[in-house]
């Protein structure tokens, strides 16, 4: 028994020694580290009888008392008193005037600075209640608050934060043209041709009633691309499809530039704003989760 513990103990000591002391505190190996590093070896020269049995039990919470020679590490030792924000407002990767003349600087200032920022602040206010919803990633939060079609009040703001992040990434200065490589092949396979897809996408955007979004999604179960529409804040994440592109058809997205001319907005998006690079990157990532077609096994 003692020998088993000794063997176990030795391994723990070795493992603990390799870890940095900061991590050790969190993992509860503090006691073990202190044995080796502080010249207390005299106490446990005989590894057969460990001085503190609870060192092997990593359920022991890290002690906030400092050992000799340790500098105070505020971020580890002091519990934060006032958590003030959980999600931050990510800015688009291009300057606000980079999308001129297709999307004006003013639109981006208001859309990002006021709408998107407002959503982030509302979300943080909801999460400050520090209840069961605290601790999820944004994707998970959306799925949880969607509640299978019966959305909780946090859903709208959480989903809109995600949707707008996704939308800024779906656009780029000098966008438009057509996709390349595998994405183009997949579009041609699922829609016939790129121009068919473009027509269908714009048509869908124009026949959307009310506020919503138009998406190019990769459907997990059917293993193909499709165009989806959602109302208000809903996103294809909620039913586990993988979105590749989005177009914001809420009126605030285009009203300042195009007033009520949705058709021109949708066409301009497709011709000059859409970022096929980001769609391609998302598609590549999505292929880690969805098997499209047969694997290409090289012959000899």
């Amino acid at each position, binding site marked *: 028994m003692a020998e088993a513990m000794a063997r176990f103990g030795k391994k723990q000591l070795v493992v603990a020694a390799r870890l940095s002391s900061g991590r050790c505190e969190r993992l509860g190996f503090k006691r073990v580290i202190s044995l080796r590093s502080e010249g207390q070896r005299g106490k446990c020269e005989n590894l057969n009888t460990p001085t503190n049995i609870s060192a092997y039990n990593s359920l022991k919470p890290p002690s906030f008392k400092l050992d000799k020679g340790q500098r105070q590490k505020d971020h580890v030792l002091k519990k934060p008193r006032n958590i003030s924000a959980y999600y931050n407002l990510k800015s688009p990767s291009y300057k606000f005037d980079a999308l001129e003349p297709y999307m004006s600087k003013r639109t981006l200032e208001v859309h990002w600075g006021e709408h998107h920022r407002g959503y982030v602040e509302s979300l943080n206010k909801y999460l400050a209640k520090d209840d069961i919803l605290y601790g999820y990633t944004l994707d998970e939060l959306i799925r949880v608050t969607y509640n299978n079609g019966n959305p909780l009040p946090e859903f709208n703001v959480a989903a809109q934060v995600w949707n707008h992040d996704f939308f800024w990434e779906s656009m780029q200065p000098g966008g438009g043209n057509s996709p390349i490589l595998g994405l183009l092949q997949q579009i041609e396979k699922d829609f016939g041709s790129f121009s068919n897809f473009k027509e269908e996408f714009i048509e869908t955007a124009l026949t959307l*009633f*009310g506020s919503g979004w138009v998406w190019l999604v990769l459907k997990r179960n059917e293993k193909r691309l499709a165009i989806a529409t959602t109302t208000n*804040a809903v996103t294809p994440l909620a039913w586990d499809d993988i979105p590749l592109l989005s177009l914001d058809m809420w009126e605030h997205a285009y*009203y300042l530039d195009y*007033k009520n001319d949705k058709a021109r907005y949708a066409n301009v998006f497709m011709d000059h704003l859409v970022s096929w690079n980001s769609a391609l990157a998302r598609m590549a990532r999505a292929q880690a989760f969805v098997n499209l077609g047969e694997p290409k096994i090289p012959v000899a």
Partner: protein
Amino acid sequence: MALRALPNVKTLGRLYRQQIRGLQTFTLPDLAYDYGALEPAISGEIMQLHHQKHHQTYITNYNKALEQLDDAIAKGDASTAVKLQSAIKFNGGGHVNHSIFWKNLAPAHEGGGEPPHGSLGWAIDQHFGSMEKLIAKMNAEGAAVQGSGWVWLAVDKELKRLVVETTANQDPLVTKGASLVPLVGIDVWEHAYYLQYKNVRPDYLKNIWKVINWKYASGVYEKECP
């Protein structure tokens, strides 16, 4: 002057053919006031776009949907007839709602913003406590509408009481209750306020009360609850 949406009887060409079949088409009703008469609560630019572009689009699409529905019914094509229902609800609802909306507004010098006297004013005080409380309630509900929709003050003609309701997109008020008659409707679609108020919908709701035409609302109320 303000016209109700009369079907256009004297027509030629395509519309004449439709008259043969008995199909009505709808036209854009005129406003009783100039586009700029509601400043500064609602800008003239918004009024012009709202009336000439948005409302007109609803009417055009409504007429188109009705024509298609007529064709489908004549051919006995049930699935097309059912598929057109959402377009009819959306565009027809848009036409109905906006027609009421133009009558709900009046410039300040023509009585816009003046609280109702008579039975409607008394009913408001009874049901909601005071005009301010009603306005606060409608503003709160209007601001809370997700996406696009309307907020209404309506009278339930069966129960003879006032209610505050919201509808989504262009759903007409009857979708919330068959016996509801709209008295005052406020459009909280973004196109109704964006150019002037950007995303600050609460400011729009606070200011629009200065141009609400309570005379029309009182007239409707007195007709339903004499």
